[in-house]
């Protein structure tokens, strides 16, 4: 049945070459843990992406219940975690996954660094990777405020104080990020918009570039 549907589409759109291009390529021996167990270090990039997919999915579902408003934010988080079936699991996935992304990304960065994979001709991909790193930190920072509890609020207060400490543009940057002088209603809506629209959009673009360059340049050679 599935094969028939696939054949029907393939006959009309010739999708097999596209599929080959994306997924059907050999894994070199030196990055295959089946050959050398130590090659598991090459899995961290893929694991980062896997956790990112979980973050996007669980985040989409959390947005069904969450309200980015200072009156209702905490109550809606409390409700979705304690009243909705499996809410504690879905929120838990997003909460722990956020930390796991950073861990996996850090390990991936270490692997790239110690295998020297960032060297010519892959410098650009390192640069894109660093941009992804900053976007991920931004996602972590903006997401941390959303539950609107004491920890969230004061973490953001401290974070914005740090932004304010930047010479010359500091005060401007803080006011822009907080959406005014007060860390309150406008800060929360702003952080929500950045967390669910702006940064994920940037992230998808950067990930696309990251993966395109890997396919174009291939995995770096063995040590």
């Amino acid at each position: 049945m599935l094969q028939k549907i696939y054949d029907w589409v393939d006959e009309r759109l010739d999708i097999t070459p596209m599929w080959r291009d994306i997924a059907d390529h050999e894994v070199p021996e030196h990055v295959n843990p089946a050959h050398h167990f130590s090659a598991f270090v090459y899995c961290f990039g893929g694991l980062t992406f896997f956790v990112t997919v979980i973050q996007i999915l669980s985040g989409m579902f959390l947005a069904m219940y969450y309200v980015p408003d200072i009156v209702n934010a905490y109550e809606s988080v409390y409700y979705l975690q304690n009243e909705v079936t499996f809410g504690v699991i879905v929120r838990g996935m997003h909460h722990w996954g956020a930390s796991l992304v950073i861990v996996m990304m850090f390990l991936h960065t270490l692997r790239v660094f110690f295998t020297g994979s960032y060297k010519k001709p892959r410098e650009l991909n390192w640069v894109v990777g660093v941009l992804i790193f900053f976007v991920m930190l931004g996602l972590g920072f903006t997401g941390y405020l959303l539950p609107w509890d004491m920890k969230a609020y004061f973490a953001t207060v401290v974070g914005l104080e740090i932004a304010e400490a930047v010479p010359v543009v500091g005060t401007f940057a803080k006011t822009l990020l907080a959406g005014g002088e007060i860390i309150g209603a406008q800060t929360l809506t702003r952080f929500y918009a950045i967390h669910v629209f702006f940064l994920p959009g940037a992230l998808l673009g950067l990930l696309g570039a990251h993966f395109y360059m890997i396919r174009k340049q291939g995995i770096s050679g063995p040590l």
Partner: protein
Amino acid sequence: MSEKEHKVSRRQFLTYTLTGVGGFMAAGMLMPMARFALDPALQAGGDTDFIRVTSVDDLTEEPQRFNFTIEQEDAWYTSDVDRVAWVYREGDEIVALSPVCTHLGCTVNWEGNEDYPEQFYCPCHFGRFEKDGTNVPNTPPTRPLDVYEMEIRDGDLYLGRTVQR
């Protein structure tokens, strides 16, 4: 059993096991999210309190409009919501009708149109109901007005939730 009688090739076996295990893991990941999203549709409707609306002595043969307030719990938001009932008595029997038109949910009024005395009238699509709530044939509504569940305690009328007839 000889080698040749194997019906499943090594490649097929690997495909089956890997998609099986992968599918199991994906399901373990997606199932909580799906159940999470389905929750409102699977939640049992809560009980409604009966609210005092009026004294039975105030009821007449003519349907009268009574406003009352219920406490509505909407997920994390609790609020007082106004409700309306059209109540009349016919001998010993008391009838409390919901004002929600059974066509598309607008609000009906008793004698809301001068051309149709002794009827409930809905201004949205000209739906009409008889005094007992029966929908007038050849107007948009397809079933009678809902009625409130009621209780009478110490000569007072208490209304609960509405039920379809």
